[in-house]
């Protein structure tokens, strides 16, 4: 009944400044993960950090009898700082895979990924899966970062995608401006019925994307990030407002009903 939650750090490294790629040797049950799903990770024993932290899955693979889970994260607080100091052989408690992932598209057509910063993590996993499972599909990625030094996950995407367009807020590399404006430049190239858009990034970016897609009919799913305590639907800490269930919409759990939502359903607020 009680699931196996014990994981071991297989490797960890800083890929770009402040961004870490950690590979965990995980129980075999994690092999069923689909892109967009997440895991809850906790340091064993102590109370600092106290709660588990949610991480999108960056990749899953098996080698022999072993299952590996990759997480790709940016150090933003006490929890991620503590994780960044872990070394090969350290153990962690992990729970998952959790939540509702992306609807993986049928074959044919175009897949557009729009990533802001570390939001690249679940999209890269999706690109990888699509590349493996639906080889006749064109995958185009728009990757945004604050500056050239903070572009995360580019190398792997370049291997998988047909093209990767980069933008930076400071113009130090690629398009100068937000990634959504870069995407807007190309918007007319995509027809609604053959394009599926997937996005993850800061809320202002997703709100801008929502505005851009007004009047368009293409499918667009986004993965949201929220603080969570449990990750399994009990604490009600991670709710977000969705435009259904009455005039005011309703509050739903990002961990359970999400983290992936139709972009048109999400109320991003001001």
């Amino acid at each position, binding site marked *: 009944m009680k*699931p196996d939650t014990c994981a071991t750090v297989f490797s960890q490294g800083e890929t770009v400044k402040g961004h870490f790629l950690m590979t965990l040797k995980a129980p075999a049950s994690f092999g069923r993960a689909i892109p967009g799903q997440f895991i809850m990770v906790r340091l064993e024993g102590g109370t600092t950090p106290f709660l588990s932290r949610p991480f999108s899955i960056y990749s899953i693979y098996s080698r022999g009898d072993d299952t590996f889970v990759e997480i790709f994260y940016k150090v933003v607080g006490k929890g991620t700082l503590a994780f960044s100091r872990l070394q090969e052989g350290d153990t962690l408690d992990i729970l998952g895979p959790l939540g509702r992932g992306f609807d993986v598209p049928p074959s044919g057509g175009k897949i557009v990924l729009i990533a802001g910063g570390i939001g690249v993590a679940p999209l890269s996993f999706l690109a990888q899966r699509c590349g493996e499972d639906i080889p006749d599909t064109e995958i185009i990625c728009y990757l945004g970062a604050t500056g050239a030094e903070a572009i995360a996950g580019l190398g792997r995407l370049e291997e998988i995608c047909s093209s990767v367009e980069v933008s930076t807020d400071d113009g130090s590399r690629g398009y100068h401006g937000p990634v959504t404006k870069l995407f807007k430049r190309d918007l007319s190239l995509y027809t609604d019925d053959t394009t599926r858009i997937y996005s993850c990034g800061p809320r202002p970016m997703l709100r801008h994307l929502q505005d851009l897609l007004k009047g368009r009919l293409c499918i667009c799913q986004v993965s949201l990030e*929220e603080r969570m305590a*449990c990750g*399994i639907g*009990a604490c009600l800490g991670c709710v977000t407002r969705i435009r259904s269930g009455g005039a005011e919409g*309703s509050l739903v759990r990002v961990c359970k009903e999400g983290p992936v939502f139709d972009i048109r359903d999400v109320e991003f607020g001001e």
Partner: protein
Amino acid sequence: MNVKMGVDIGGLTLKNPVMTASGTFGYGEEYADYLDLDRLGAIVVKGLSLNPREGNPPSRIIETASGMLNAVGLQNVGVEEFIDKKLPYLRTIDSAIVANIFGESVEEYVKVAQILSNTEGVDALEVNISCPNVKRGGVAFGSDPVLAGEVTRAVKGVSRLPVIVKLTPNVTDITEIARSVEGAGADALSLINTLTGMSIDIEKRVPHLEHITGGLSGPAIKPVALRMVWETVSAVSIPVIGVGGIMDASDALEFLIAGARAVQIGTANFINPSVAIDIIDGIERYLSDNNFDDINNLIGTLRV
């Protein structure tokens, strides 16, 4: 050695003293993949009001030193949907089911209590007069001995089930409230609910919680909870259930030794969803190792 783990909480019989605290265990089903629910002493469900409640806007939680603040604000499906959609599953579980109830007025508490008291599958009521995250009701009743007694008496008057009253620590003297509630007919007490707290984002200079203040839980509050349980046990003769920051079996044993007849596991469920089972096993092992054949012989044996 076969240890007797059963306890009696004012007419509610539990197979063991480990309960899951309201608001930390959903409606039970959320945890079905992580532990054997049949092994729990009791499940206390998320606080129920007469009508569904949306709760407070996000953000609702923030981690603090050895704990967390929450301002969920009693989001729940309402008592009717609970009975239609959630209770059928709970009835398949071989543990006591305690319905935590909440109202913005004495009349609402009474209505919810009446409905649940006449529903098959609910074994006891826990009256929440201690939520710090709602504008009306909640802690407003729990911090005034007269109002606390009034709610208790009214609920008791319409309920055929054992009535547990959950107390707030946000008062000067918890024993005064406890005595008032006992005098009004409560069958048992559970304490403590969360301590009111606050946390600020210094970059943006805004509160981390949209509700500004929230309820502090987790191991940070355990010493406070233990002290209040110990004081209350000496002040009343009805059973007391210990709640507050219990993370493992040794924490639970502290409360039992202090005189709590049972314990509730709260925030610990969030970080280890199967922790309640570890705690049951740990208590049993302790009793066996220390030659107790009945848990009731351990309860209240603090040497002072």
